[in-house]
């Protein structure tokens, strides 16, 4: 199983029936592929839709129905559309149960940096700051390390997305939570030892006695 699949499958297990969920671009988008059959989850697209469906068949797309990246999508029965003030009212107002976002860095206190690398990448924050500030539960889905460098850092040196800490980080190596405000190793990926996780984690991790492997 490749890194992205491990992350997406594990994050999908966090979703509960009836949840309103917003997925960011990149790895988070893959999560919708692994929602267990029969689980009734609503996905929001922040350009104004609840009830996003799969990419339509060739020739059946509608130019006025797209995801937040402008790519054609479909809508499921029960879908609804709205303007951007409503869309972000849902997000900031705590009506979105779970958001899954990519990350550049998460630090020991759960703070996320994911929107800019000053001088290199200045794309704009889009909806990320509102999502982290307002969603009921924030899950970061990202690789544990990039080019051998840990993305779980002592303290973010990239600009923060929000002062509100995230709730869970799921990587290709581990699941990390923040009970009591401290980064804590909750699970390891299949075949990965606690020592291996610690070796590529810059932040100090709380290591409980029992750390199960992800059930994928």
């Amino acid at each position, binding site marked *: 199983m490749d890194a992205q699949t491990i992350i997406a499958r594990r994050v999908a297990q966090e979703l509960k029936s009836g949840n309103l969920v917003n997925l960011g671009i990149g790895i988070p988008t893959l999560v919708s592929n692994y929602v267990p059959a029969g689980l009734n989850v609503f996905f929001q697209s922040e350009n104004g839709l609840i009830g996003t469906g799969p990419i339509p068949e060739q020739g059946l797309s509608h130019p006025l129905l797209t995801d937040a990246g402008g790519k054609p999508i479909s809508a499921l029965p029960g879908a609804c559309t709205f*303007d951007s003030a409503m869309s972000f009212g849902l997000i900031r107002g705590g009506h979105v149960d779970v958001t899954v976002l990519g990350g550049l860095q998460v630090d020991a206190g759960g703070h996320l940096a994911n929107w800019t690398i000053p001088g290199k990448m200045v794309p704009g924050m889009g909806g990320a*700051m509102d999502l982290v500030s*307002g969603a009921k539960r924030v899950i970061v889905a990202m690789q544990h390390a990039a080019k051998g460098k840990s993305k779980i850092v002592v303290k973010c040196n990239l600009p923060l997305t929000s*002062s509100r800490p995230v709730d869970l980080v799921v990587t290709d190596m581990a699941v990390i939570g923040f009970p009591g405000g401290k980064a804590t190793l909750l699970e390891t990926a299949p075949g990965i030892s606690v020592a291996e996780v610690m070796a590529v984690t810059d932040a100090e991790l709380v290591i409980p006695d029992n750390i199960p492997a992800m059930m994928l």
Partner: protein
Amino acid sequence: MKAVSAEEAIAMIPNGATVMVGGFMGVGTPDRLLDELVRQQKSDLMLICNDAALPGKGIGKLIDAALVSRMTASHIGLNPKVHQQMMANRIVVDLIPQGTLAERIRAGGCGLGGVLTQTGVGTSVEQGKQKIEVGGKTYLLETALHADFALVHAFLADYSGNLSYALTARNFNPLMAMAADTVIVTTEHIVPTGVIAPDHVVTPGPLVDYLIANG
């Protein structure tokens, strides 16, 4: 509401005007008006819009033609030409969280001085902004945005100027239709008054100044 040609409507916009443009990655963007801005070479535009779309698409057409001097937006990452013009000091970009952008426009259209939001507290977005404590929580005061012109794209417009929108092409359009001195609308279809049921009207006709007539 007056029906005019795109040429007549865009001729009213002076160089240097502040212009809101509806749409999200080019979806729900009033393309005929953007094409006409390019044809008439209206320059130094101060745009308020969600994103810069892609080169050759939506707002990207105005960037391609180097007609924009300032852009207030939430996302420019998919249009490398904006970066090039930023680096060359030809365009100033104010990046704003998307929900804050929507609420600042809504406030501008609703007679509010601004809104209080927790989004951006403790980040670079808070720089230079007033912080206000309400009920033990810290908020940023985000001031209202207003424009000289709003360029809006609807799905249906009736002879009275009532508008309805389709699917994800609604986005910022109804908010902007309230927040500018002059509102200019393109639409997929012009229909007789009454075709849009009163309950389905999203933007009331009196907000619309000019509707672009069928060519």
